[in-house]
């Protein structure tokens, strides 16, 4: 056991677990933050996607020791009131069906619209193809990512 210190959703966090425990299980079991999902354990489905220093990362294959000193954002940290542009777009397009993959979908989409102002369908496919959805919400996801990019641009415009 070794204490790992990092920033989680804007706050300093220490977690005292086996250093090789995947971040996913430290979040879910140790810290009780269950918004990040377990889907495959092999970085194949994207359900466990979080941001580490702003980069979308599979938490199921990321040892907790490797996030020491880094900034981790989970779905719970995206906003406190569903006001993030991607969350707003997901609500507007009513994207989720079962919803299990959507934390990961949203975290991947949030990273995409943060760096790509006006993503094309192929930008979206490229960024999102690592996130599986068995309910088949892909068409709604495409629509919502376009919408999120617009909301993101408006938010940036408003801040200037």
């Amino acid at each position, binding site marked *: 056991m070794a204490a790992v210190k990092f920033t989680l959703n804007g706050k300093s966090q220490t977690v005292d677990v086996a250093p090789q425990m995947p971040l996913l299980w430290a979040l879910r079991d140790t810290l009780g933050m269950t918004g990040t999902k377990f889907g495959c354990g092999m970085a194949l489905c994207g359900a466990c996607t979080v941001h580490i220093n702003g980069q979308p990362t599979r938490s199921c294959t990321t040892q907790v020791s490797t996030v020491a000193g880094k900034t981790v954002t989970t779905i*719970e940290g995206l906003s406190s009131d569903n006001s993030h542009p991607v969350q707003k777009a997901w609500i507007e397009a009513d994207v989720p*069906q079962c919803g299990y993959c959507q934390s990961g979908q949203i975290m991947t989409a949030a990273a995409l619209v943060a760096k790509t102002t006006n993503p094309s369908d192929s930008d979206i496919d490229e960024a999102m193809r690592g996130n599986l959805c068995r309910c088949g919400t892909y068409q709604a996801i495409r629509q919502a990512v376009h919408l999120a990019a617009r909301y993101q641009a408006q938010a940036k415009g408003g801040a200037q």
Partner: protein
Amino acid sequence: MNPVNRRSFLKTGAAVGGGLLVGFQLPVKSQAQTAGPLTLNAFVKVGTDDTVTLEIHKSEMGQGTVTSLSQLLAEELECDWKKIRTEFPGVAPVYGAPMMGAYGSLSIRTSWQPLRQAGAAAREMLVQAAAQQWKVDKSQCRAENNTVVNTTTGAKLTYGALAEAAAKLPAPANVPLKTAAQYKLIGTSPKRLDTPAKVNGSIGFGLDVRRPGMLYASLERCPVFEGKVASFDATKAMAVPGVKKVVQISNGVAVVADNTWSAMEGRKALVIKWDEGKWANVSTPGLRQEWAGLAAKPGMSMRKAGDPEAAFAGAAKKVEAVYEAPYLSHAPMEPLNATVEVRPDGCDIWVASQIQSLAQQTAAMVTGLPANKCLIHTQYLGGGFGRRGGADYVTEAVEIAKAMSPTPVKLTWSREDDLQHDTYRPASYVKFSGGLDAQGSPVSFSARVVCPPFGGNSTAVEGIQDMKYAIPNVQVEFTAPDTGTPVSYWRSVGYSQNTYFMEAFIDEMAGAAGADPVEFRRKLLAGTPRLLNVLNIVAEKSNWGKPLPAGRFRGVGIVNNIGSFNAQVAEVSVTQGKVKVHKVVCAVDCGQVVNPAIVEAQIQSGIVYGLSTVTKLGITLDKGRVVQKNFNNYDPIRIDEMPVVEVHIVSSHENPGGIGEASTPSIVPAVVNAVYAATKKRVRMLPIKAADLV
């Protein structure tokens, strides 16, 4: 559950008039009307704060029951959509026990009458309470938007203000329901009620359950079906940090730890000797060979009309073909799990189950407790597709929790467990023959199906046995092979493979007749006008018969299942054997639509689910073991493979049909028939391999 019971139950339900007889009144009216919302009936509670709580007795697995069932209740209740809260009730006869659950695309069909009646009855109680308070006749009062209005004075009382008085009134019987012309919510698409909590991680799936003092379990099962533990050594597993205990249960050896990862690590350290049993030599090539042998002999007759053998013998043109489909796994995104606490006096089960009654019966059987002491706490389902209609994972979790009693334990399956220990969509092998007369009209149709059945033989042959084409001489035969591979309900059940077989073979017959595939079908569908109608719509909307861009080809597929009618045209291109589906046009007639946006989403969903099986998914066996282990070799379609899906919904006030399983079957033949148009190669086995098309 005993699948036979389930299927015979469905038949009984259908036999008594197309609706399961779910009432809405509590058997004993709740007397504990103290704090919290007040109970008006089994489906409606109203709080003094004016909130309305609706009981959703059909599990939410993405198909939209939380929203659509709320629409049925709210339509008659005249409540404010924004004040609705929903919850999942425990198991009770009023909610459908002993078969309480969401399965068979029945949720709307079986709730359509009782939930509107429950909403209407609750509304009448609120109106009666207002009439009593105003000392006026009920006819002078009208319910609207969470209030009752005095139509003479214009005075208003909120539902919250009326809740206490209304809850004391007797429930009225046989309240007249609105006519279709009066609907305000039914047929509209309010936003889904569950979306906000599904975009911030808070919704609460089975896997998200946390109980005080809870431990976590991972279970090692025999890699060969029906195999047993011969002996095991837990020494190394117990040495893994966090591991608390190793327990043997009927289906394997479980490692219990203080977190999921330690349980999984401990499990890797188990040393187990298995008695692999009699299925240890089963392999897919061997099964195919065996089933081909069975298909060479006559089977049990499932449908016979005329004299198909004589008609075939005398036919001007003959078509014969063998079709095969593999076992399939459900692979819902949320791996199976259950959290269970067993005490001497009772048991609590937190589970994302499609059939809560079965989960309860299972817990009662394992613990020896009375069923009413086994409380099911329904969680949101991270996908179901039929998989969560079983209770194998509940059995395991209860057995582990019983060994750990009174500590609550959460059992989590890995993805590998999910793919290797599923209850699979069965593989199937079908030998067809069809005869045509000199004018190209079909004179005979014969099918010999070899497929492991479950819950009755119809699951193996539905989609062929009940095919709707008017052919004078028909024979459908069936043989059940003996396999150890567990099989069960998979989205659209037998229609999932048989619609592919049937519709691909009908295209072969159309080809032999030199006829256009749509025109050939049209001539044979006069007896099923709603199926003919969706075929006509999809032909028109897809511009069937009109030119396409170079390299693009169309194919068609149709099905009548779950009380609905579905036709699809797929537009594909094939490049060096690689199939790309560009667009799918779908027409659906599911009777009265409750929420068109949810219907459209379900159509898209079913198409994606079926499309994954055309080019990508298949479960194979080697030495009794499932070869596929994770999403690397069982890889469903991803966003870059998603075609544009265009949905046309037939406007109808017929009784509702099902929708969750409506579109999964016909996408498969629509694509393979388009592949034939592109390559002149018939796809007679799935999934398609590029090498077969080059």
